[in-house]
């Protein structure tokens, strides 16, 4: 066996991730792991350059394939014309409109632009907050809902949303935890208010937040 041979893939998770790191499609956590390993391992850094070469040439290879002729589009719309007529377009849902804010940020852009991601989350948070506000005005209240302390009377916690969390994930997370964003971001953290009346309830809710995949950090706020 060659002395320089790399261990099998199962023994070297970081090396397996290099292609996705080069393409900018890793989660924030995995990207940080790879960055740390690259900074401390010159051989790994050299191999990363090989990955970058592969990425560049794969793109060139694909770009050389050209594009389809206008026939493809003509063919498509002829087939669409032959389809049964649809009813009028439904109104675009709120969550879809929220996702528009996120859509212009590709994974690669997000991976390299923390500032852009933070801006997107601010926009997201504002709209989500307004959504929850709107819902509370329009949704009929169940009798059982009265047992839960109103969020306005709850306690506050600091959370940092995971970079890979989508607008839909965050909206679902807030709704599931009966939480409202009340401040932030400050240093990447948002202040949320959750329904809790006692210290035990607060600890329980914070534990639940910490276990969620949507947040990367959660703690009670002062």
């Amino acid at each position: 066996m060659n002395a320089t041979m790399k261990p099998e893939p199962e023994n070297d998770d970081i090396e397996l991730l290099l292609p996705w790191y080069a393409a900018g499609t890793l989660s924030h956590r995995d990207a940080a792991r790879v960055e740390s390993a690259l900074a401390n391992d010159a051989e790994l850094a050299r191999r990363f350059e090989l990955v970058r070469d592969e990425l560049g040439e794969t793109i060139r290879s694909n770009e050389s394939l050209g594009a389809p002729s206008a026939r493809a589009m003509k063919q498509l719309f002829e087939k669409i014309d032959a389809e049964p007529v649809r009813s009028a377009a439904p109104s675009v849902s709120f969550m879809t409109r929220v996702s528009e804010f996120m859509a212009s940020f590709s994974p690669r852009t997000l991976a390299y632009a923390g500032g852009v991601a933070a801006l997107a989350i601010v926009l997201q948070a504002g709209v989500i907050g307004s959504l929850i506000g709107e819902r509370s005005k329009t949704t009929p209240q169940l009798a059982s809902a009265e047992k839960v302390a109103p969020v306005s009377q709850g306690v506050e916690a600091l959370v940092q949303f995971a970079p890979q969390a989508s607008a839909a994930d965050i909206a679902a997370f807030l709704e599931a935890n009966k939480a409202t964003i009340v401040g932030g971001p400050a240093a990447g953290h948002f202040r949320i208010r959750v329904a809790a009346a006692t210290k035990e309830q607060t600890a329980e809710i914070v534990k639940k937040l910490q276990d969620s995949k949507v947040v990367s950090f959660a703690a009670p706020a002062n």
Partner: protein
Amino acid sequence: MQQTSDEVLIQRIAGGDRLAMQVLFARHHVRVYRFVLRLVRNEATAEDLISEVFLDVWRQAGRFEGRSAVSTWLLAIARFKALSALRGRKEAELDDDVAEAIEDVSDTPEAAMQKKDKGEILRKCIETLSPDHREIIDLVYYHEKSVEEVAEIVGIPENTVKTRMFYARKKLAESLKAAGIERGWP
């Protein structure tokens, strides 16, 4: 300027908006075409298939749940269509395609070698990978798909995605070595 998101376009398409369909097609058809072309290796067939892919989008837009990116959904449909088309071909045609591919494998890296162009040799070696290896290289490097998205498109577990990519790269290194380029890996 803010672009209309793919998800919004899909919602509009679900309501019968042809303009939204045109926008979505314009945005994605080239990448979908290239992905399909790699699989079927025939331009006319690839063009036919992309119109089929987008026709499926037109028909199924109302059922799109947004659990994955629209581009991932498109590639998954495209892959299914391409593989179905390949299965539908006569065996003799497939044999011809394979023979053509093998012929490419044997001489193109050498021809490139004579030009002393490392990038060109690398491209030729990428093009000679097996369909499975080529597919994963394209999905990761060109289509910018995450581990999870590749798993969804190809229909394999995430760990298999990582190891398949590793072995595709290993095969590529072997191919480069055979063409005279030693990279010191793996």
